[in-house]
C-alpha cells in the first residue's frame, strides 16, 4: 500500500481505517449485552428482533458493519476513489446506527423479549468496541478520502443544539395536552394550540400581549436607534469639552446592575402618572438607550476622518455630515442596532414584569409567557406556551437569519483591521 498512489486519496491512513473497520465488523460477533448471566451478540439480537420500528437501527448497525469490513478488504485489493467515497457513505450510516443504538438498545431488547428492565450499564464489550471502532474507522476513512473530519463534530453538535428547539416545535403541535408526556414524538398533531392562543382573550389574552409587544418593539426600535446613532456620532466624530468626562460617567453608571434602581424608576413613573402603561416602557427604554453607544461608536471610529474634513471644507454643517456622510456609510451598524432594539423589546422581562404587576391586559409577550409557566398553570398551558414561543420565535429567527451578515459585521466592525 505504501508505494500505491491514487489521486484524491491519502493512503497513509488506509491501514488504520481498515483495521478499525474490520474491528467494527468483528464486534458484531462479540457479546452485545449481558444481564443476569444471559449474553447475546448483536447478530443474535438482530436475528431475534422483529416487529418494532426501531429494529432497523439494529439491522443497520449489524449488517452495515459487516459490509463496511468487507469494503475495507475489497478496497485494499483494488483501490479507487469512487470506491472509498462509497465506503465512506456506507460507514457513515453505520456510525449513525451505532450511535442510535446507544439510545435504542433498551427498546429493541425489551420488545424482542430478550430482557426486561434493561439498563445501558448492561451493554457489553462488543457494543462499546463497535461504537468506538466505528467512529475511529469513520475518521480514518474520511482522512483517506480527504474529507474534512470537521463534519463529525458539527453533525453531533448540530443535533444537540437543535434538540430542544425541535422539542419546542413538536410540543407546539402536540394534540395531547399537559406538561408530562412519556414520549418524544407526539401521538397526534394539531393546530389547536395556536388557535387557543388567540381565541380566548379573557383567560389568555395572548393576541393582546403580542400587539403590546409589537407596539413597544416598533416604537422603541425607532427611538432607540436614533438616540444611539446620535450619541455615538457625537462621541466619535466631534470633540468638545467634557467629552471624556461624559463617557466616563456613562461607563460608571453602566457598572451598576440596572434593575437595582427599578423600584425607584417605578416610583418616579408613578409620580409622573405613567405607571402600568406601555408608554412608560417605551420612555424608560429610550432613556437608557444611550448607554449602548459603544459598538456604534467603535464602528464610527473606523470611518476615515478625511471624509468629514472634506465635507467641512465644502461648507457642510455637522448635522449635514451626520445625515449625508456618516449615516449612508453605516448601513450594517444601523441594521445591527435596529435588530438589537427590536429583539430587546421581545425578550425584556424584568422591568415589564415589575411595571405591570398583575395587570394582564398590558403584559408583553415575555411576561405573559413566563406567567404561563408558573408551576400552578404549567400543566394547563404547556402546549399553548410552546405554541406562543413558536409564534414569537419564528419571525425573530427569520429576521435574524436574513440579517445575519449585518450582525456579524456590526459585531466585528469595531475590531476589523
Amino acid at each position, binding site marked *: 500500500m505504501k508505494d500505491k498512489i491514487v489521486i484524491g486519496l491519502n493512503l497513509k491512513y488506509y491501514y488504520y481505517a481498515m483495521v478499525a473497520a474490520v474491528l467494527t465488523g468483528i464486534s458484531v460477533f462479540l457479546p452485545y449485552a449481558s444481564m443476569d448471566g444471559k449474553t447475546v451478540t448483536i447478530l443474535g439480537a438482530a436475528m431475534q428482533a422483529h416487529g418494532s420500528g426501531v429494529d432497523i437501527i439494529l439491522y443497520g448497525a449489524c449488517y452495515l458493519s459487516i459490509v463496511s469490513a468487507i469494503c475495507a478488504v475489497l478496497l485494499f485489493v483494488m483501490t479507487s476513489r469512487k470506491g472509498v467515497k462509497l465506503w465512506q457513505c456506507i460507514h457513515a450510516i453505520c456510525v449513525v446506527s451505532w450511535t442510535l443504538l*446507544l*439510545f435504542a438498545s433498551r*427498546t429493541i431488547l425489551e420488545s424482542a423479549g430478550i430482557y426486561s428492565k434493561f*439498563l*445501558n450499564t448492561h451493554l457489553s464489550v462488543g457494543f462499546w468496541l463497535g461504537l468506538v471502532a466505528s467512529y475511529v474507522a469513520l475518521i480514518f476513512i474520511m482522512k483517506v478520502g480527504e474529507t*474534512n473530519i*470537521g463534519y463529525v463534530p*458539527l453533525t453531533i*453538535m*448540530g443535533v444537540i*443544539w437543535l434538540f*430542544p*428547539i425541535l422539542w*419546542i416545535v413538536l410540543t407546539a403541535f402536540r394534540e395531547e395536552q399537559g*406538561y408530562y*408526556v*412519556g*414520549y*418524544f414524538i407526539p401521538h397526534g398533531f394539531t393546530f389547536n394550540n395556536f388557535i387557543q392562543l388567540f381565541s380566548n382573550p379573557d383567560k389568555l389574552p395572548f393576541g393582546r400581549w403580542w400587539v403590546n409587544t409589537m407596539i413597544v418593539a416598533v416604537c422603541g426600535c425607532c427611538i432607540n436607534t436614533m438616540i444611539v446613532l*446620535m*450619541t455615538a456620532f*457625537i462621541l466619535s466624530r466631534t470633540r468638545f469639552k467634557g*467629552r471624556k468626562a*461624559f463617557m466616563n460617567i456613562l*461607563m460608571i*453608571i453602566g457598572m*451598576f*446592575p440596572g434593575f*437595582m*434602581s427599578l*423600584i*425607584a*424608576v417605578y*416610583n*418616579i413613573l408613578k409620580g409622573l402618572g405613567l405607571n402600568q402603561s406601555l408608554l412608560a416602557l417605551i*420612555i*424608560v427604554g429610550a*432613556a*437608557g438607550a*444611550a*448607554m449602548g453607544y459603544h459598538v456604534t461608536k467603535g464602528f464610527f*471610529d473606523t470611518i476615515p476622518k478625511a471624509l468629514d474634513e472634506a465635507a467641512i471644507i465644502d461648507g457642510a*454643517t455637522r*448635522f449635514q455630515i451626520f445625515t449625508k456622510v456618516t449615516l449612508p456609510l453605516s448601513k450594517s451598524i444601523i441594521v445591527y442596532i435596529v435588530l438589537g432594539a427590536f429583539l430587546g423589546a421581545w*425578550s425584556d*422581562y*424584568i422591568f415589564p414584569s415589575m411595571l405591570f404587576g398583575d395587570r394582564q391586559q398590558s403584559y408583553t409577550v415575555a411576561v405573559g*409567557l*413566563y406567567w404561563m*409557566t408558573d408551576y400552578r398553570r404549567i400543566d394547563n398551558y*404547556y402546549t399553548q406556551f410552546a405554541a406562543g414561543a413558536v409564534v414569537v*420565535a419564528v419571525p425573530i429567527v427569520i*429576521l*435574524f437569519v436574513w440579517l445575519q451578515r449585518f*450582525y*456579524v459585521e456590526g*459585531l*466585528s466592525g469595531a*475590531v*476589523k483591521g
Partner: protein
Amino acid sequence: MASKKNEGKVIVPGTPEERNFVTTFTKGGATSKLSYVILGLENMVNGQVIKGLLFLWAEIVYWFFMFRSGFSMLAGLKTLGTHTQEMVLNEELGIYETVPGDNSMLILLTGVVAIVVTIAFIAVWLFSISSGEHARAQKAAGRHVRSFTEDVKSLANDNIHFSFLAIPVLGLSVFTVMPLFYMILMAFTNYDSEHQPPGNLFHWVELENFKTLLASSDRLSATFWPILGWTLIWGVCATFTCYFGGMVLAMVINSKGIKGKKFWRTLFVITYAVPAFISLRFVATMLGERGIFNVLLEQWGFTASPLPFLTNATWARVTVIVVNFWIGVPVTMLMVSGILMNIPAELYESAKLDGATPFVMFRKITFPYMWFVTTPYLISNLIGNFNNFNAIYFLTGGAPNSLDYFKGAGKTDLLVTWLYKLTKDSNDYNLAATIGIIIFILSATFTLVTFSRSGSVQNEEGFQ
C-alpha cells in the same frame, strides 16, 4: 487644574487673556461680578439679550422651586421623617382611625429630586458664567458677538453636541442617575421588610448594612459569601467555556473543505435567535423531574430513576453552566468568525510548509491572535456573566433553596438574582442596594483592568 495650566503661559498684550471660573470673578468688572448672582447679566450687557434672559429665567424658576418646596425637601433628608403613622381614637365615632405619618420613602425620593435639580442648576450657573465671559471677551477684542439666531443655528454645527445629547442626558438623568442615586442612599438606611412606609419610618444607619452583610456572623453574611463565591465561579466557567467552545466551533466551520458554511452557521444561530427567556424557560421545563430529558433518559435505558438536574445543588450548578454553554457558544462563534477571517492566510501557509500540525497552528497562530484581539471582549463578557440575570433566573430561579441561606436565596443564586429577590419578594431594599454597590465595586475593578490594558480604548483614533 486650571490654574496650573495658566502658570507657564505668557499673556501677549493686546489679546484678551483667558479667564477661568475664579479669575472671571477676581479680574472681572462689576457686571462680571454681578452675573455670579444675577445669571445672564454679562450676556445681556454684551448684546446677547435673549440668551441672558433665558439664564435669568432658569435662575428664577430654580429659586422659586427651592423656596416653595425644595428647601423643605432637602431638610427632610436629614431625618427621613419623624411622625410614625398611628391609630388614634376618634372619640365622636368611637373608632380608631389611621392618622397618616411621614412617608420616609417619598421624603428620600423628593430629597434626591431636589439634589438633582440643584446639580442641574449649578451646571447652568457655571455655563452662564463661562458663556457671559466669552461674550465679554469677544466684545472686548472687537470681534463679532453671536446673536441668538446664530446661536440656535450653531446647534446644528459646532455646538451639535448640545442638541444631539440633550435627549440622552435628560433621559439618563431622570431614569438612570436619579434612581441610582436614590438606591445608593438607600444602602445607608434600614429600609427593610420591617420598616415599610407608610406604616413605618426608616432612618439612616450609616454603614450598618455593609457590616452585617460582610462581617457579621449571622445568616446574612453566611449567605453573602457563598453566593459571591458561586458568582465568581459561575462567571469564570460560563465565560471561558463559551469562549473556547465558540472559538473551536468557528474554526471548524471556517476550516477548508467544509461545505455549506452558511448552513452550519445558521443552524447554530437559530438557538441564539430564539429569545433567551423562551429557550431558557423551555429548557428548564425539559429538565424537570418529569421533564422530557428524564423521560428519555429512562426510556433509553440510561437511568432507572429521574436525575435531579435542577433540584440538587451541585447538579443544578453544573446544569446552568452547561445550558449557558448551549446558549452562549453561537454568540462567540459569530463574533470569532469575523475575527478569524482577518488573520492573514500567509501565516498558516508558511506554518504548513514548515510541517506544523493543526494543533500547533492553533497554539502558535490562531490563539495568540484571538487572545490579543478579544481580551477586552472577554473581560466585559466576564462582568456580563457575573450579572447574568437571565441565565439563572429563567432556568432555576436560584433554586434549590437552602435553609442555611437568608430567606429565599438559593444555591444557584448569583448576587444579581439575590438582589432581585430581595427587591421583589422580600422588600429588603437596603440589602438589595448594598449588594448593588458591592456588584458595582466588583465590576469596576474588572473594568479598570480592561481599560488600562485595552489598546482599542486608549487608541480610539487609531483608525481615523
